[in-house]
């Protein structure tokens, strides 16, 4: 099977979601990676170095400066003519673009692929991950899907071996959609979606100012910082830190959460974590049902003690 994976990238770098989606794509067949950008060279080199990539198709065009679905989808649909399957990561990028491309191709889409169950069969979560379903793409139809990146290990990068094919696509692009700006949260901390350790805070943290205690602890462990929907809704932290059904789905080795009760919509975002540690005042909080290690108590008393204990361990 010939598989086309659409790379997610920014500022000349591949998003970690690309290497993870590649592992899924490689289960289906031979994988080419497509890059859409106004300046493809740096990203194309990086994509060519990923293990298992046959060809890199680089589509350089001024309109591709920003990832607009209305602009990318017709190009993807055109490129897809030569392939049996098209995949994108199930990040906000892929969720926005893939269905638009699938509809242009007139085929259904499989969202959030967790596992490949058969030649044209895939497992995916529904009901916030409370149920898993297996779906089959009808014979003779192109496979279109997004990959639930937290379910897949990244394909390793080695020496650049795949050929880079610069391609011009004869596709007319719409002008009805215009990029205005991206307000990206600036942070020197590790990326939430790929960090091995994540520290999260919830409503129990109480305020934006109080969240400093979470950041400080995370910095001690070199961890990324996440939050529950309640903390984002309350304005304690920006939206890109939300973990859960409608936020980010993550799978760190260690997830420590403070003041998060554990609504199913949050839990679905952390189910794949290696070890879950929960601290909460309420002994009946549902988070304790899934936490590997729970401690009932006031996070403002526990966190300073925990910092001390970790300092003592380190020295």
């Amino acid at each position, binding site marked *: 099977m010939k598989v086309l994976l659409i790379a997610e990238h920014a500022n000349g770098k591949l998003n970690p979601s690309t290497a993870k989606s590649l592992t899924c794509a490689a289960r289906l067949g031979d994988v080419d990676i497509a890059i859409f950008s106004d300046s493809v060279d740096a990203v194309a080199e990086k994509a060519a170095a990923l293990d298992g990539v046959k060809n890199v198709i680089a589509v350089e065009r001024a309109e591709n400066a920003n990832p607009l679905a209305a602009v990318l989808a017709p190009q993807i649909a055109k490129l897809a003519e030569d392939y049996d399957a098209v995949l994108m990561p199930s990040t906000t990028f892929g969720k926005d673009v893939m269905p*638009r491309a*699938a*509809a242009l191709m007139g085929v259904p889409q499989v969202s959030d692929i967790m596992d490949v169950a058969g030649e044209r069969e895939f497992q995916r979560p529904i*009901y916030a991950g409370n149920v*898993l379903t297996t779906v089959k793409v009808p014979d003779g139809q192109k496979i279109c899907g997004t990959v639930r990146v937290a379910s897949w290990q990244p394909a390793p990068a080695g020496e650049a071996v795949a050929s880079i094919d610069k391609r011009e696509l004869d596709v007319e692009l719409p002008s009805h959609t215009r990029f205005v700006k991206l307000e990206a949260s600036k942070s020197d901390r590790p990326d939430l979606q790929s960090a091995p350790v994540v520290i999260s805070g919830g409503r129990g943290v109480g305020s934006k100012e109080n969240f400093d205690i979470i950041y400080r602890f995370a910095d001690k462990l070199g961890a990324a910082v996440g939050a529950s929907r309640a903390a984002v809704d309350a304005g304690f932290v920006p939206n*890109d830190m939300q973990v859960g059904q409608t936020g980010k789905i993550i799978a760190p080795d260690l997830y420590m959460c403070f003041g998060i009760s554990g609504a199913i919509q949050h839990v679905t975002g952390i*189910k794949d974590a290696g070890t879950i540690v929960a601290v909460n005042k309420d002994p009946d909080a549902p988070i304790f049902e899934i936490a590997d290690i729970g401690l009932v108590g006031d996070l403002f008393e526990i966190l300073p003690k925990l910092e001390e*204990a970790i300092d003592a361990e380190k020295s």
Partner: protein
Amino acid sequence: MKILVPIKRVIDYNVRVQLKRDNSGVQTDGVKMSINPFDEIAVEEALRIKERGDAEEVIVVSIGAKVCEQQIRNALAMGADRGILVETDDAVQPLGAARILQKIREEEGTDLVIMGKQAIDDDCNQTGQMLAAISNLPQATFGSKVELANGKATVTREVDEGLEVIEVDLPAIITTDLRLNEPRFVKMPDIMKAKKKPLDVKPLADLGVEMPPALENTGYAPPPKREGGKKVESVEELVEAMKNKGVL
């Protein structure tokens, strides 16, 4: 301006969803059903646009069995002007729903479609984007702020990197994220009033929409269970337990 708001009947947000004993599907008998929460946000946004004087009519549309009339009535009680039910007993997937909505959009001549970014049952997150594609219209997904002026919509989108702002020409399809607004509570007199509002029922077969290929469901399973539930009594024990797990 007319605004079309598609809504989906789903198992209520607060229900703990369970598989049937034989894993043949999800238990829906006797379970509370509601408007998909993201769609409720879409209804609210459309009403606010109308209340600001930027739209004349808010039309809600649902696809499904007769019982979906309950959710349409709820949206009418919130303040929508009229409802349409595209009636079918078959399960409709996102691409099919997009084709149906495209037909309704054309028939009604709506300038703006506002709908939920995903339904909390199948969690597909596809229909709005697919509707935009086949209508050849702009899309602004995952909106947390919508401003309309001069035939354009400026939409702030919640993306993984932070907040993205895009501008689209109208007509357009906008999908809602959680922080766009907080839907109003419906009052008793509004429920009574809603009973008298027009609700058109159109059998799917009469619509003349060709249904596209669909995915075949080949099985359901419960997710792997996490063995959690262990508690420790002190910070010292917590550190010890983390060391034993090799995570510290």
